């Protein structure tokens, strides 16, 4: 294991250092087109957030690094209003639920293009690596940017993972590589090679490999017996490769084309008392090709066309099954073709409108679905108008969704506004109202014995209001925000026991009201070579079951949703050395929808520390870093019986040329 790692590290290093660099004429970052109909007080990251019509949280690549996150899911837990469901450990499935809505209400987009899983409706965020990610942005509702595919406009929450654009500091090539090695046999090597092909065109080729044995020790607490056990069958292997071609200002406008291949395999560990058997594994192979063309047709109009084809093959194997085959071997193949066209027109210098139409065709083949092979053609439309005045930004419109396999044809309105109330004091207030729908997935509808074909979409009515106070002075920026939210979710698609415990059915019978507030602050300051960056947040969330007033769980807090949670990330850098400390804390929560004291999971907090130093060698930068994850070795479980790892160490290096 180590040998393999060293081998790859050596080759990467060799490759980087032996390359000839060619001087280029210009220094160009490839930038995406600007949104011209918006008057901003300032166009910094913080300024964009202050003017956003709904609350949004983001992390740039520096902050992602400061959290030590190798996967997007690890960075997300620091965001306000987010509860992570982590099925334990290094490779476990990770999904997020924002403001009590559930994982399916969050749309995940990669460079503005949706990632979708019609089978489960959930994206495993543990599979999206943070390498070559420029920013992660979470928008709670409506985005200021009208030039977005319709499907992103229609979800309750959008998570946009933006990839890094190549930065050519005077050369035709740039290389970014990263190596990490840490506890439990975790190793990863990543390499991105960018090439300036011509004045307008550039390409990036990246490859990643990571492996982890995942055999972290955890304590199996059983009364007064407490045994330290090593997690078994918890290994993960992943390789990913990605090639992108981009061009600016061509005849067709700005073009990006990307091809992506990902293959992973992992064991699914168990924690059954007195029974050591652990016999489940999964394999996932994904590939997609996506492209987008953005062109300013006239001075006032812009067209964005997006296309994507994706193919996903996943396999689940359990070798300890008492059926006649002795195994359960399920294979699923999902394919989706997607096309979106968005046209934006600036009616005046303050008023702009956009029309977006998306069409997608998805199919699923699997060996345990009811007779039909599920297929769905889905149309999404978004019709938006934005008014951006000196002190007011308002976005309003309707989203439309139509699907062919089940009878859904629904129009959902939304409106959001941001008012720069006291410009001298930097105070903005914002409010938004939106309806978002979540369509039943293929599993909900068709999965053997559980699916029901007469499901309706889940509806969420989202209300929020808040305030932002932002100030900047020379090299210091400061922001304080407070948002109150109220989400009313009806027709929740819930698994309900049917005629026997073996026979669960998906039905539209839940009703949840989730309300709370998110408060936080962001501060960044620099003085000469010293810089400090601080983010801190606190979320209070009361997500209650309101399904049946006579029911046993009426007004009980939803399972796995703590009422209180908070996070802090502090980064300090002086010249070439830096360090960061991060902390995530969660109050008590319940592992059962019935909040009996037997099901109360204790509060916990996890702290991480990292330090790094940058060396300059000729025109390249080498960074060495060391991290401790879960410094105080806190043991906790996010999902019952899936223990999280304790303290881990990691060392690594980033090389940028």
């Amino acid at each position, binding site marked *: 294991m180590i040998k393999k790692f060293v081998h790859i590290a050596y080759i990467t290093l060799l490759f980087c250092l032996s390359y000839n660099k060619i001087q280029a004429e210009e220094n160009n970052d490839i930038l995406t087109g600007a949104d011209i109909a918006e008057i901003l007080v300032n166009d910094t990251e913080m300024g964009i957030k202050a003017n956003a019509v709904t609350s949004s949280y983001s992390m740039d690549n520096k902050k992602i690094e400061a959290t030590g996150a190798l996967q997007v899911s690890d960075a997300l837990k620091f965001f306000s209003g987010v509860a992570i469901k982590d099925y334990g450990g290094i490779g476990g499935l990770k999904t997020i639920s924002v403001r009590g809505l559930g994982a399916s209400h969050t749309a995940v987009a990669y460079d503005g293009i949706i990632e979708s899983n019609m089978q489960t409706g959930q994206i495993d965020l543990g599979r999206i690596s943070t390498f070559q990610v420029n920013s992660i942005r979470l928008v709670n509702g409506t985005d200021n940017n009208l030039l977005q595919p319709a499907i992103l406009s229609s979800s309750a929450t959008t998570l946009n993972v933006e990839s890094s654009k190549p930065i050519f500091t005077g050369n035709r090539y740039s290389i970014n590589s990263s190596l990490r090695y840490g506890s439990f046999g975790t190793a990863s090597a990543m390499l991105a090679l960018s090439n300036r092909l011509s004045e307008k065109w550039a390409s990036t080729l990246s490859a990643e490999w990571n492996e982890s044995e995942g055999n972290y020790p955890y304590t199996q607490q059983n009364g007064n017996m407490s045994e330290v056990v090593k997690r078994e069958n918890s290994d993960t292997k992943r390789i990913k490769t990605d090639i992108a071609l981009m061009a600016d200002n061509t005849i067709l406008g700005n073009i990006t084309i990307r091809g992506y291949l990902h293959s992973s395999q992992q064991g699914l560990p168990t924690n059954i*008392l007195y029974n050591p058997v652990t016999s489940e594994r999964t394999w996932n192979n994904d590939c997609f090709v996506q492209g987008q063309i953005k062109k300013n047709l006239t001075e006032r109009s812009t067209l964005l066309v997006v296309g994507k084809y994706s193919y996903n093959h996943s396999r689940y194997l359990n070798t300890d099954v008492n059926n*006649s085959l002795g195994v359960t071997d399920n294979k699923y193949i999902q394919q989706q073709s997607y096309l979106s066209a968005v046209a934006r027109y600036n009616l005046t210098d303050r008023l702009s409108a956009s029309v977006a139409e998306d069409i997608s065709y998805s199919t699923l083949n699997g060996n345990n679905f009811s007779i039909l092979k599920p297929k769905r053609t889905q149309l999404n439309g978004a019709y938006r108008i934005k008014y951006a005045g000196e002190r007011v930004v308002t976005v309003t419109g309707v989203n439309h969704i139509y699907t062919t396999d089940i009878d859904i044809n629904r129009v959902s309105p939304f409106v959001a506004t941001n008012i720069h109330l006291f410009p001298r004091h930097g105070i903005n207030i914002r409010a938004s109202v939106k309806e978002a729908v979540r369509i039943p997935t293929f599993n909900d509808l068709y999965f053997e014995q559980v699916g029901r074909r007469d499901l309706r979409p889940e509806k969420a009515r989202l209300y929020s209001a808040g305030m932002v106070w932002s100030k900047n002075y020379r090299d210091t920026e400061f922001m304080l925000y407070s948002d109150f939210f109220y989400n009313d979710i009806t027709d929740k698609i819930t698994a309900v*026991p049917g005629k026997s415990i073996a026979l669960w059915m998906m039905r539209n019978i839940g009703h949840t009201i989730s309300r709370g507030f998110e408060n936080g602050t962001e501060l960044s300051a620099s003085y000469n070579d010293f810089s400090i960056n601080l983010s801190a947040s606190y979320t209070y969330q009361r997500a209650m079951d309101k399904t049946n007033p006579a029911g*046993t769980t009426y007004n009980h807090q939803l399972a796995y949703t703590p009422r209180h949670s908070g996070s802090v990330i502090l980064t300090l850098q002086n010249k070439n050395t830096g360090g960061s400390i991060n902390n995530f804390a969660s109050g008590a929560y319940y*592992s*059962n929808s019935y909040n*009996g004291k037997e099901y109360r999971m204790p509060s916990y907090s996890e702290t991480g520390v990292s330090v790094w130093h940058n060396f300059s060698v000729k025109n390249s930068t080498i960074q060495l870093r060391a991290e401790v994850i879960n410094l105080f070795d806190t043991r906790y479980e996010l999902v019952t*019986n899936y223990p999280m790892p304790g303290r881990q160490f990691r060392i690594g290096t980033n090389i940028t040329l």
Partner: protein
Amino acid sequence: MKNRLFLYIILLAVTACSDDPLFLDNSNNNAALQDQGIYVLCEGLFNQNNSTLAYFDKNSTEKNIYYSANNRKLGDTANDILYYDNKIYIAVSVSDYVEVIDAGSCKSIKMIPFGSETHSAQPRSIAAYQDKIYVCCYDGTVCRIDTAALSIEKSIKVGRNPDDIAIANQKIYVSNSGGLDFQNPDNTISVIDINSFTEIKKIQVHPNPGCMATDSDERLFVVSRGIYNQQTNSYDTRLHIIDTDKDAVSNTLNVDVTNIASDGSNIYLYGESKNKVTVMESATCQIYNNSFIMDGTQIERIYGIDINPRNGDVYICDAIDYVTPGSIFCFDKFGYLKFSFSNVGINPNEVVFANADNLNSSIQQQPLFRTPTAVLAYRPAPGQFVNEMPLYKEGDNDSIMRAKCLEKLSNTNSGYVSLGGFGGSITVAFVPGIENKADDYDFQILGNAFTGSAEPGIIRVSADTNNNGIADDEWFEIAGSEHLAGNITPNYTVTYLRPETPTSPIEWSDNNGANGIMDRLDSFHPQPYYPQWIEENSITVSGTLIHHNLEYVSGQWKSYPKDWGYADNQSNNNEKSKIKIEWATDLDGNPVVLEKIDFIEIITAVHLQEDLIGELSTEISSIIAL
């Protein structure tokens, strides 16, 4: 503006307060248990290691007694529990072992492991016989464990995924469900000889056999769930009755059934509608109680039924929604709730009784309701159920038939007494008498009425004013809704003639000059319809006739009930089947005031018959003092 803001703040505060979570009402009624201790096994949820064992008696409630006694958890998905010879055996299926604990202290004596490092056997159900314990495992095996050595002595192979195990007639029966192959289950029962512990036969049954029960005549009852139908989202179930002498299926009932329990002479079953219990006589397969629960107690999802062998109390486990903690309910043998415990644990699936093996008759519990202490007269008119309910055997006389009636009336689940056609009657005594509670119901006649099959009988009451224990005092008739509306004919008289051969139709004539023949339904009731133990060759009866008609609705004859005040008229869980003593009237129809009554007489009060249903006759299963 300010006021409005203030209002909103108040509103917010108020709504915030009204969001308090409610917790399950812990209606713990330990005292009602009296001297009986019970253990409740709760399965928990798959992969959460949260199976629990609860214990209740009059002094204590222990929700997690296994954990308290042993300082460790029971494990994951405990499927079955057995009380045998002062030890309790628990099959903890997903944790792959059988736990043996001392019944008194609940301390672990031994954890018997099953399976291996790479294979889970999944022990599922346990049975015991003569110092050996037999465990069937989902991997297709049955293991024998000696109760002294507490280790697996021998293991044999049976069919696929054996679900339940039962012992009858010196043999072990195992239902091979094959349930893990969804669309291709198994369809056999393995028969294993106890002495040699080898499989001697496989009996073919409806696919997916599961729950089993035995009665005191060693009959084996098996539920077969069939193959799941994706279109209708349901199972196609059967109940098999297996003759354990021949080891063959003797009868198959096409009923909606998921699980069953037996008290020795009755089978209690529930099906896909998870909150209704049906009771069936095990010897005859007669379903005579379509809805065991009499008082409207709501059960969300029945997950288990167990009967206390000492007193016939019926314990029902309610899993609620299979995710949140469930409850248990205890009903007396009449179907009235005695007590319940809520928040017992997740998926309570079985109740076992302390000292179940050693019946201690001095701890008989008093049922909530009283039944007649004597049957003074049983004079049925001819009818299709006469000589059958109760059963007449050659040589029985009047005194024996009355004793049989008394046995039937002593609880609601031992069958009916049929009064035959118009004028047939039964007279019972209550010692002590039944007090007349002002403005409240005093007694109830339980019959077999359900919507569309009322067979009303008149009720008459009498007080033993001369205190001689004989019903020779003045009789008063309970005036029901039809009396008050004038839809009656008093002193209607009918004479029935003994037929030429016992199984010929019976001729009758009345005091209006009408006559007719009582038809027979030979395919259902081939026995004689004229009471066989009486000497007389004709029966003349006289009493109030209720004007009644049958209605032909959707291809069937329906007999809709009268409003109130009659026997076998409204269904048993309808309040209008209850009777108040203050409705009693004298011969002139004037109300009388009675402080208490000691005798009750019930007389069939309709004179009708129709094709396919035969004649209308009043049937009663019991008379209870409220």
